[in-house]
């Protein structure tokens, strides 16, 4: 697995597009903080405000960018035919899928952590907030979960890209799923449905307080909702990869 992770890291880092996407995550957070900081200069910020600035506000952007990074793991392979060199290097297809999912998880999470760290540093400079807020465990829980979720979404994108044999469709599926299907489900069935919907359950988990997201509190099994969807997609992708010939899309 170590060789596969190094292979994936070298694959991702050797493309300028990966770095553009990573800087987009950090840059968006810093620009947003700068805009807010200049607008509310020297206004006091509480722990919930910090959590909002460094995690929740950019969560969707981070997920989307991380999804694009994850989708490229298989999307590029199918588009440019590099799936063949990949499978020649690592002929066990389940292992390839797992390696790409883990590598994308790590990169997505690292990008989110870097963005949260940069955002917090800028907020320290621009706003008035007491350092004692850092002792609030709920703030750190929110940051930690925001980081983990930014890793889970690209892992899902890896599976979807393997199924769709392309990155564009995988990202579109995530956008439609998280941005259209789930909100419409909430409208139709009420906020309680968020407990079983993958993206909204992630939002519930990362919230500093349940009320702050107007989604209600997460259910007792909220931890398992997204991983279950992820497991289903990765299982389907494993079966599809095993049954299909290594051809381009």
């Amino acid at each position, binding site marked *: 697995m170590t060789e596969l992770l190094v292979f994936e890291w070298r694959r991702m880092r050797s493309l300028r597009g990966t770095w553009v996407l990573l800087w987009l995550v950090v840059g968006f957070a810093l620009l947003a903080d700068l805009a807010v900081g200049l607008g509310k200069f020297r206004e006091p910020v509480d722990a919930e405000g910090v959590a909002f600035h460094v995690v929740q506000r950019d969560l969707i952007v981070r997920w989307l960018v991380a999804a694009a990074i994850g989708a490229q793991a298989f999307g590029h392979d199918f588009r440019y035919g590099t799936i063949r060199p990949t499978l*020649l290097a690592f002929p066990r297809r389940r292992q390839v899928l797992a390696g790409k999912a883990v590598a994308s998880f790590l990169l997505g999470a690292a990008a989110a952590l870097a963005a949260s760290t940069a955002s917090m540093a800028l907020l320290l400079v621009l706003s008035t907030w007491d350092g004692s807020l850092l002792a609030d465990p709920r703030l750190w829980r929110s940051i930690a979960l925001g980081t983990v979720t930014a890793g889970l979404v690209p892992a899902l994108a890896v599976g979807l890209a393997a199924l769709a044999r392309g990155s564009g469709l995988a990202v579109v599926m995530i956008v439609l799923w998280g941005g259209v299907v789930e909100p419409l489900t909430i409208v139709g069935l009420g906020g309680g449905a968020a407990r079983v919907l993958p993206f909204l359950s992630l939002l519930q988990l990362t919230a500093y307080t349940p009320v702050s997201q107007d989604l209600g509190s997460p259910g007792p099994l909220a931890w398992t909702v997204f991983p279950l969807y992820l497991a289903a997609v990765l299982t389907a992708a494993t079966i599809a990869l095993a*049954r299909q010939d290594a051809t381009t899309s």
Partner: protein
Amino acid sequence: MIQARGLTKRFGSTLAVDDLSFVVEPGKVTGFLGPNGAGKSTTLHLMLGLIRGGGRTLFDGRPYRELACPMRVVGAMLEARALHPRRSARDHLRMLAAAARVSDRRVDQVLDQVGLTPVAHRRAGGFSLGMTQRLGLAAALLAEPRALLLDEPANGLDPHGVAWLRALLRAQAAQGRAVLVSSHLLAEMQLLADHLLVMGRGRLLADEPTDRLLGRSRRSHVLVRSPDADRLAELLVAEGATVQRSGASELTVLGISAQVVGELAHEHRLRLHELASRNASLEAAFLELVDGEVEYLQGGAGRQ
């Protein structure tokens, strides 16, 4: 050693590869020939498990997917264009080096070996076909594998490059590697291959040493010049040869080797001024062999 057993692949109703079995010996260059659509590339993909199908291929006794570090056992170049166009040659090889568990120094060595050091940092998308082929070869050689599987490696190479490739592959075989090369360049394969596998319509039409394949061609013959041509012709016909007169003292002999002609002449104290084997070209032998086995032919004569 590479052992392929019962390789079979069907695309819908088309049998692309039909129960193919062969062995690729170490220390030899084995040429893999066949007309377009014969199933050569499909066979190579099947051997490496890239496409699903029947049969199995063993590399040093194990299937490809069971090899602990496959790139150290088999170096494959199937489609040179399978590269990300925005990745540099060096980054492409460094990525594969991680999989092959070899150092970055080895990456620089193979780049130098294939002559790509000056363009190592350039994006592969800007490479010519010849440069891309060289990069594909570098990837195949990266982990110093015990076997090489190369699909049309000479495509896009200039004459100098083809000569370089020939020397490279002969050197690889001389070091004990099993080298399997598919190619359309028959003249080149005649110079390069010790052994030939010939495919037509998914079936194996020939699996024999290059010399023997050329020798049994209808166009291979023995040229004899002798002042006793009449008497020699009678003796040769009696031995079962087919003899054609091509001049007053010149005979074209088919169906018998130069060695037999020479011994017959010596036995009957006949003078010889010239005795030479004239092997058919690989092109002639190949065309005889695949006659009727061509998938795509001008004028609609082939199977479409």
